[in-house]
């Protein structure tokens, strides 16, 4: 992200929520950071810029580019700089453009680059192309066998139509803590491959997310692949998500990858969705679980340790206290669901 030119806008919303919103944009008014979830922001937007009857939700003007290789895409990205945005599935970006929260002068569509799609096993790793759509993950026999958490969790992302277009890479690179893949990738200890003009580098999922809509990805880089080590036999995993309706973001959700021996936890990772500025790993809760049985007492301690690291924002899904409590509850349920899958 280009950090040279920031504009910081502060809105106080007295009527609806008595909240203060802060968001940061660059000079083109491309949204770089906001303090709250987009949904509230949209409500806010309507306060300042009411829609006239007959207004159509059409994105602002832009030039469209459809490169057919990653090299070509990176070249375009370097050439067009700050004015360009990458289009993956478009189900976050296009709605933001309709509402003028993002107004890129150029869209670089990655949908015509076949090398960015697909799921394969290579060199002992599961490699998922960043432009692989959610429905392909949902139906992948390779993932069901080797990384069952992913197809299991993807069922709870959006709806059938959106899953035909929404991509795992877009979900990750958008940097929205409400998206599901960041916490799942953290629980799986995934590695992201980023390709730029200087070549390819890899970043661990836990190091990638820096804040709401802020990631370690540079403006001229593209997320190309997600690498995950196949889960050992007899690993239990689960993603438990509390949401109000199909297509909603999580009120709170927990991804758990669990190994046990003789009823005691030997290895565990916990990723949490939408309860902080980024997806987070609940490392203290993980440490607390090692060597323990999943008794009611241990689960209560885990829920407390999880709650201690949550800093959710109040919004229409609930206040911070409720979301924090739900993060603990989802973690308990995910641990029990994961342990039930261990024979």
């Amino acid at each position, binding site marked *: 992200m280009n950090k040279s030119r920031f504009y910081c806008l502060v809105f106080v919303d007295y009527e609806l929520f008595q909240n203060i919103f802060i968001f940061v944009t660059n000079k083109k008014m491309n949204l770089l950071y906001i303090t709250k979830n987009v949904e509230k922001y949209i409500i806010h937007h309507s306060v300042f810029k009411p829609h006239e009857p007959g207004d159509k939700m059409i994105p602002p003007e832009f030039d*469209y580019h459809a490169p057919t290789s990653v090299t070509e895409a990176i070249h375009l990205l370097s050439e067009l700089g700050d004015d360009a945005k990458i289009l993956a599935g478009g189900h976050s970006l296009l709605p933001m453009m309709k509402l003028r929260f993002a107004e890129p002068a150029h869209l670089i569509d990655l949908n015509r680059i076949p090398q960015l799609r697909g799921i394969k096993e290579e060199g002992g790793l599961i490699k998922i192309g960043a432009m692989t759509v959610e429905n392909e993950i949902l139906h992948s026999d390779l993932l069901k066998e080797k990384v069952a958490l992913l197809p299991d969790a993807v069922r709870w992302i959006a709806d*059938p139509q959106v899953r035909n277009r929404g991509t795992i890479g877009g979900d990750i690179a958008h940097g929205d803590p409400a998206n599901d893949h960041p916490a799942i990738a953290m629980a799986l200890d995934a590695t992201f491959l980023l390709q730029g003009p200087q070549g390819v580098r890899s970043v661990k999922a836990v190091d990638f997310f820096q804040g709401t809509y802020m990631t370690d990805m540079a403006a001229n880089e593209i997320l190309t692949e997600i690498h995950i080590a196949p889960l050992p036999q007899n690993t239990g995993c689960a993603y438990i998500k509390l949401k109000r309706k199909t297509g909603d973001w999580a009120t709170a959700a927990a991804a758990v990858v669990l190994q046990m021996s003789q009823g005691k936890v030997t290895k565990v990772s916990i990723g949490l969705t939408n309860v902080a500025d980024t997806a987070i790993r609940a490392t203290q809760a993980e440490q607390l679980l090692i060597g323990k049985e999943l008794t009611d007492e241990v689960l209560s301690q885990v829920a407390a340790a999880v709650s201690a690291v949550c800093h959710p924002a109040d919004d229409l899904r609930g206040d911070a206290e409720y979301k924090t409590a739900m993060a603990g509850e989802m973690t308990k349920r995910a641990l029990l669901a994961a342990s039930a899958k261990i024979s």
Partner: protein
Amino acid sequence: MTKKLVSMTINGKKYEEAVEPRTLLIHFLRENLNLTGAHIGCETSHCGACTVDIDGESVKSCTHLAVQCEGSDILTVEGLAKNGVLSAVQEGFHLEHGLQCGFCTPGMLVRSYRLLQENPNPTEAEIRAGISGNLCRCTGYQNIVKAVQYAAKKLQETATA
């Protein structure tokens, strides 16, 4: 901004038009081609009234650019009936009263059509999950589910006949 020439097949007919890159597929269908079957509901990819079939997949056309459809094969609700004969899903919605106001119906029909291609013999739970991206504010979904069940049965009978 420069217009882009796009060509695509819609309901078996070839179209070639110059469009602004920002033109959404739903607006292209309704305003450029006068195919007003697919509806504009929420415009935020939640309600599913704008659902069309692109290359054999259900897609919400309010969140898809027309320029992205270069070379695509698209089916809209107008393409479901053949030679004046209703398709199985349309017949199901008619006979089982799968609609009241009808606003969601084009999306429901196109999605149900694709669902039955993906899964010809779905359980009730699979139907409900399969149409979970389509909102209906009238029916409570019960008759829509019955309509899809009717269509599934009819398609299977036709296939075995």
